[in-house]
C-alpha cells in the first residue's frame, strides 16, 4: 500500500518539530528516514502511525494509505504494524501470546478461529526462526530475538504498512548486521511497504530503496542510496553520509593557502572550504609544485579491506581520516609519527552554504 503525506507539520508547544512535509512512498518500497537526533524523523514516523497527531492549524495535513484517507483515523484502525526500538513486548505474556495478541483482540466476527490463530502464529514464528521459543517469556530472550518477536507480532495482523522506529538501535553491531540482512530478505519476500527510522547512515544506505535525509524538522533530500551518496544536494547531506575531511583556506590567484599548506585550485579569490571523503585522500612521500599538504600520521587501524589512517597537521583544525589500500600502506612503510604529503584525488564544495555560514559568522 502506498503512503502519501501532504503538508504534514508538527509543533510541540511552541517548538517546531516538523516543517510542512510532503512525501510519497510507493507500494512495496522500503524507505529509510535518516537524520541526527532531533531531526524530526521519529516524529514523522509516529505521525504516519497515528501515535502522534499532526498540526491542525494553519491547515490540516493529509495522510493517505493508497486511496484511503487516514488523517483522522485512530492508530488502532490504521492497519499499521509498529516496531519499537526497545521492542515494547508484553513481558507477562509468552512469545506465542505476544505474537497472537493482535489476532486475539480483533472483534469477534473478524477474529480467526483459534486453530487458525495458532497456525498463523507458528508460521510467523517460523519465519523469524523462533518457533522453538514459543513458550518462553521475553525476559528469557536476547535483544535480537526480542526484536524478531516484536516484528512477528507486528506482522501478525497483516498490516498495510510496517513502521519501524530505530529497530536495531539497541542491539550490538554483529546482531544488527544479521537482522538487517534478514529484514531486507523478509521485505523482498513479503513485499510490504515499510518505513524505518535510523540515525545510522550505513544502515539507511544498505537497507533502503530510497532514503529520506532529514535535519531540523526538514527533509533535505530524498533519493536512492547511490544517488544520495554520489550527488548529495547540500553540505548537510554530504557530511551526514560519511566521514568528511575539511580543508579551509583563502584562494589567491588560483592557489588555496592554509598555514604552510597550499593547493592549486581553479576557483575565484576568497575564503573557501573544500570537503574530501577519506578515500579521496592519497598519501605520498613527496609534495608536488601544485600540492603541498604536509601531514603526520597519528593513528593506524589496519582492519578491513583498507587501512584507516588518521592525519594531523598544524594547519588542520580537525584531524583528517584517509583510507589507504594495504599495498600502498606497505609500500610507504607507514607508521605512527611519519611525515607524509596528502593529495586530494577529488574534492567537493558547497559554495552557497559556505557563504551563508560565513555571513552568519560575521553577523
Amino acid at each position, binding site marked *: 500500500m502506498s503512503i502519501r503525506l501532504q503538508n504534514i507539520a508538527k509543533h510541540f508547544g511552541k517548538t517546531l518539530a516538523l516543517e510542512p512535509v510532503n512525501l510519497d512512498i510507493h507500494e512495496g518500497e522500503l524507505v529509510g528516514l535518516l537524520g541526527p537526533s532531533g531531526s524530526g524523523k521519529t516524529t514523522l514516523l509516529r505521525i504516519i*502511525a497515528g*501515535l502522534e497527531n499532526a498540526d491542525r492549524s494553519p491547515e490540516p495535513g493529509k495522510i493517505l494509505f493508497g486511496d484511503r484517507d487516514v488523517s483522522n483515523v*485512530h*492508530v*488502532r*484502525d490504521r492497519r*499499521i*504494524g*509498529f516496531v*519499537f526500538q*526497545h521492542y*515494547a*513486548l*508484553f*513481558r*507477562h*505474556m509468552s512469545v506465542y501470546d505476544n505474537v497472537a*495478541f*493482535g489476532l486475539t*483482540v*480483533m472483534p469477534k466476527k473478524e477474529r480467526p478461529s483459534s486453530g487458525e490463530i495458532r497456525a498463523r502464529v507458528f508460521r510467523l514464528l517460523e519465519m523469524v526462526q523462533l518457533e522453538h521459543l514459543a513458550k518462553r*517469556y521475553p*525476559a*528469557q530472550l536476547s535483544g535480537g530475538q526480542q526484536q524478531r518477536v*516484536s516484528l512477528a*507480532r*507486528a506482522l*501478525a*495482523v497483516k498490516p498495510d504498512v510496517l513502521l519501524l522506529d530505530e529497530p536495531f538501535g539497541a542491539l550490538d553491531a554483529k546482531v544488527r548486521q544479521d537482522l538487517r540482512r534478514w529484514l531486507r530478505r523478509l521485505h523482498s519476500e513479503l513485499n510490504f511497504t515499510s518505513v524505518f527510522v535510523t540515525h545510522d547512515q550505513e544502515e539507511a544506505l544498505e537497507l533502503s530503496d530510497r532514503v529520506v535525509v532529514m535535519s531540523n524538522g526538514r527533509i533535505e533530500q530524498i533519493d536512492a542510496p547511490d544517488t544520495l551518496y554520489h550527488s548529495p544536494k547540500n553540505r548537510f547531506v554530504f557530511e551526514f553520509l560519511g566521514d568528511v575531511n575539511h580543508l579551509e583556506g583563502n584562494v589567491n590567484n588560483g592557489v588555496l593557502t592554509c598555514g604552510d599548506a597550499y593547493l592549486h585550485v581553479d576557483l575565484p579569490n576568497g575564503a573557501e572550504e573544500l570537503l574530501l571523503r577519506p578515500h579521496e585522500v592519497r598519501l605520498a612521500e613527496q609534495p608536488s609544485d601544485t600540492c603541498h599538504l604536509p601531514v603526520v600520521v597519528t593513528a593506524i587501524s589496519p582492519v578491513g579491506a583498507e587501512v584507516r589512517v588518521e592525519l594531523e597537521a598544524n594547519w588542520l583544525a580537525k584531524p583528517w581520516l584517509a583510507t589507504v589500500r594495504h599495498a600502498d600502506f606497505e609500500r610507504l612503510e607507514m607508521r605512527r609519527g611519519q611525515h607524509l604529503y596528502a593529495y586530494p584525488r577529488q574534492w567537493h564544495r558547497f559554495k552557497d552554504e559556505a557563504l551563508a555560514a560565513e555571513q552568519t559568522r560575521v553577523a
Partner: protein
Amino acid sequence: MSLALRLTGNTRVLPGFGLSMGISVLFISLVLLLPITGLFGQLSNLSLAQYWAIITEGRIVASYTVTIGAAAVAALINAVFGLLLAWVLVRYEFPGKRLLDALMDLPFALPTAVAGITLATLYAGSGWMGRLLEPLGFQVAYTWVGIALAMAFTSIPFVVRTVQPVLEDLPAEVDEAAMSLGATDGVAFRRVIMPHLWPALVTGTGLAFVRSLGEFGAIIFIAGNMPYETEITALMIFVKLQEYDYAGASAIASVVLFVSLALLLAINVWQGRFVRRLHGGKG
C-alpha cells in the same frame, strides 16, 4: 549454613557488611522482636484452654467480624480509588499535580485521632455530611460504614504508593504497541496494563487491609463502640488493658498479629512468583 558461608566469605568486595548487618539486626531486635517476645511472654501465663476461651468469647468474635468486614470493604474501596489516583498521578499532567501527590501522604502524617475526631464530627447527625445523608436514611457515624470510612482514610496511601512506581516503570510504548495491534482502550488496560499492576495492587490492598485490622485512633471516635455491633478488635484489646487484664489483651493481640503476618507472608510469596516470571525465571 551455606548462606552464612556465602554471606561472610572473604570474597566480598563491598565493605561494611558486618557493621551494617549488625546494627540492622540490633535495631530490628529492639524495635520489633523484643515487643513481640514480650507479647508471647504474657501469653505464657495462660493455658491453652484459657487462651481459646478468651479469643472465642462472643463479644470478641463479633469484633473480629466487624473489623474484618469493614477492613475488607475499606481495602476494596481503596483498591479501586487508589489505582485511579495512582493512574491520574502518573499518566496525566495537570496544575496542582504536585500538591495532590503530597496530599496522598497526609493520612500517614496526620495523627489518626485527629482524623477520627474530624470524621466523627463531619458524619455525625449534626455534621456537614451527616446532615445531608441522614435524611436520606443513610447513617455513617456510629455504624460499621463509619468504621470502613475511617479505615479507608488511614490506609489509602498504601495502595497509591505501591502502585505508583510500578505504573511509572511501565513504558507508554507498551500501551502504544497494544493500540497499534488494534486493541481498544479497555482491552489494552485489561490485558496489557493490569497484569503488570496486579502484584503491586494486591500488595497495596493487602497492606491497606492489614493496616485497617490494627487501626484504633481513627476509628473509635466514629464507631460508636456498641458491643456486638460496632466494636473493633483493637478496642477490645484496649478494654482488656484498662481492666488490667494483660494476658487477655495479649491473647487478642496475638490473633491480630498472626492474621496480619500470615497475610503479609502470603502476599510476598505470591508476588515473588509473579516477579520471577517477568524477569525470566521459571515461574
